[in-house]
């Protein structure tokens, strides 16, 4: 990582950018103008983002207190907390909260563990390492909808999917013609969504953890090995503590993305059989039931929940950033 100075050092690097107390009124005015000149390049992005992302959230909060179903436009009015009461007492929504948590935790944890294993395998030199890395990244680069369709129709399908096809083939090798042919998407609906997402997210975890492994000081490992440390000791006492931040970062970013997943749930099970997560449920309330008020209240609940996750995520990223800055 490059050397970088701290904020005060940077400011000091351009003298005159900030007027000090000794400067006269004229100096202060040019100082303020310079401050604005510094801020100017930032403003378009900031204004754009506030208008496009923050205003809709404010509107969502307002609508969440409104009785508003698009199918009954005349019946519109102030609803106070009715929508929220409906949200918290709706068993379908409560189960979708559970589904979201289960789906996210399973996908993030399993792909984190698999990603760690793969990153450790790839952290050593062997023939064709670049090719293996490319093969492993591929699942992450398949368009998510395409991947969901691939799993649903080409792999899971009970009558001609690759999984059951392979079972028939393997049983056939042993002369049996009654191989088990489970209908994966109805037998284990949530697991089939999870497996397809784990397949897509493991490469992501692997990439971040591999970058972490490669930033580890090689001489410490070498010294430990010279002192007779076993491979497990090195992993437990050197690699893992070093990787902690990277594990946190990968888990939190993964959580942020997987919590919002819509494509896999929408495509593979259409939210049926207890696989409807929050984004899918909101989509359904809004798109199919046309209940704007309730959909907004659901949205507000989701935002509050993700703020909790986001606070932890931001703190982790912040500590990485501080480490970089003070280096």
């Amino acid at each position: 990582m490059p050397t970088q100075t701290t904020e005060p050092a940077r400011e000091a690097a351009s003298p005159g950018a900030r007027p000090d107390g000794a400067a006269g009124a004229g100096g202060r005015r040019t100082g303020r103008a310079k401050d604005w000149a510094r801020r100017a390049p930032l403003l378009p992005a900031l204004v754009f983002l506030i208008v496009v992302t923050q205003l809709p959230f404010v509107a969502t909060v307002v609508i969440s207190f409104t009785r508003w179903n698009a199918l009954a436009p005349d019946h519109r009015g102030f609803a106070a907390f009715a929508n929220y009461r409906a949200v918290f007492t709706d068993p379908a929504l409560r189960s979708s909260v559970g589904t979201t948590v289960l789906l996210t935790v399973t996908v993030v944890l399993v792909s984190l563990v698999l990603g760690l294993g793969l990153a450790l395998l790839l952290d050593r030199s062997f023939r064709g390492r670049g090719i293996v890395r490319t093969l492993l990244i591929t699942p992450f680069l398949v368009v998510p909808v395409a991947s969901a369709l691939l799993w649903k129709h080409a792999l899971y399908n009970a009558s001609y999917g690759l999984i059951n096809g392979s079972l028939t083939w393997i049983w056939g090798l042993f002369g049996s013609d009654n191989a088990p042919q489970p209908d994966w998407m109805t037998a284990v609906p949530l697991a089939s969504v999870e497996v397809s997402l784990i397949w897509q997210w493991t490469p992501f975890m692997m990439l971040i953890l591999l970058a972490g492994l490669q930033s580890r000081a090689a001489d410490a490992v070498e010294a430990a090995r010279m002192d007779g440390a076993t491979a497990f000791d090195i992993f437990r006492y050197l690699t893992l503590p070093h990787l902690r931040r990277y594990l946190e970062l990968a888990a939190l970013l993964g959580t942020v993305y997987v919590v919002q997943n819509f494509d896999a749930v929408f495509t593979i099970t259409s939210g049926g059989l207890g696989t409807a997560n929050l984004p899918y449920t909101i989509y359904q309330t809004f798109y199919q039931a046309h209940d704007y008020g309730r959909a907004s209240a659901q949205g507000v609940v989701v935002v509050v929940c993700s703020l909790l996750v986001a606070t932890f995520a931001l703190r982790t990223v912040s500590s990485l950033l501080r480490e970089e800055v003070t280096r």
Partner: protein
Amino acid sequence: MNRAPLTRRQRRTGSLLGLAAWLCGIAFFLPVAWMVLTSFHSEADAATNPPSLGAGLSLHGYREFFGADSGVSPWPPLINSLTASVVSTLLVLALAVPAAYALAIKPVRKWSDVLFFFLSTKMLPLVAGLLPVYLVAQNTGLLDSVWLLVILYTSMNLPIAVWMMRSFLAEVPVEMLEAASIDGAGLTTTLTRIVAPVALPGIAATALISFIFSWNELLFARVLTGIVAGTAPVFLTGLVTSQGLFLAKVCAAATVISLPVLVAGFAAQDKLVQGLSLGAVK
């Protein structure tokens, strides 16, 4: 790393681990390989049990995808996707590069607060803002317009792009900037001679990531577009029919639609992790 001569046992473990890595790589790649192989099978061969690996290859799936029988052309959605992704990526760069400059090269006061504001917008689920966006679009005639997607994709990728560009621009050596200002170099000289060489690879990587995320997006495109502005992912979900065989066609479509992302992703492999981790990991 290991300078001591390897014992035979160490070498054997080493090659076993290499083999394990290869097997994992192949296992993860297998579904994609199966998708591509199926796309080149006829519909009848694509839907057999057990799978017909050695069946003759055919371009039938691709011809179907391009509307040979149905007469439905995939070009309008592909062009919509391309427009939404490319234009929003250009907008993202136009907004993010100056912002990152203000955050990294000559940091404004409280620059890290600003940075975290950008990031926090990324943490909020998009779906929560969907309804107001829909209502505004309905009232302004932007519903089923690709330009609405351009605006939304820009806001979706802007925070990532600002973070990424900031981490690239932070690599610009401060001493050289100082030296340039002492030598009386103007802004243009500073930008072209010192900043650009460091920033250009970063801009390319940021553009690729932004392109990939826009190209992949389904939820907004599905809710906010219809017949006119539907994008490739929306088109893809519409290919599945309740009657007849469609597996080869769907695999062909999935392959074609994933191709730009695969190419972009492989090209930016080294920068991919930096982008996905918002510049926190290099």
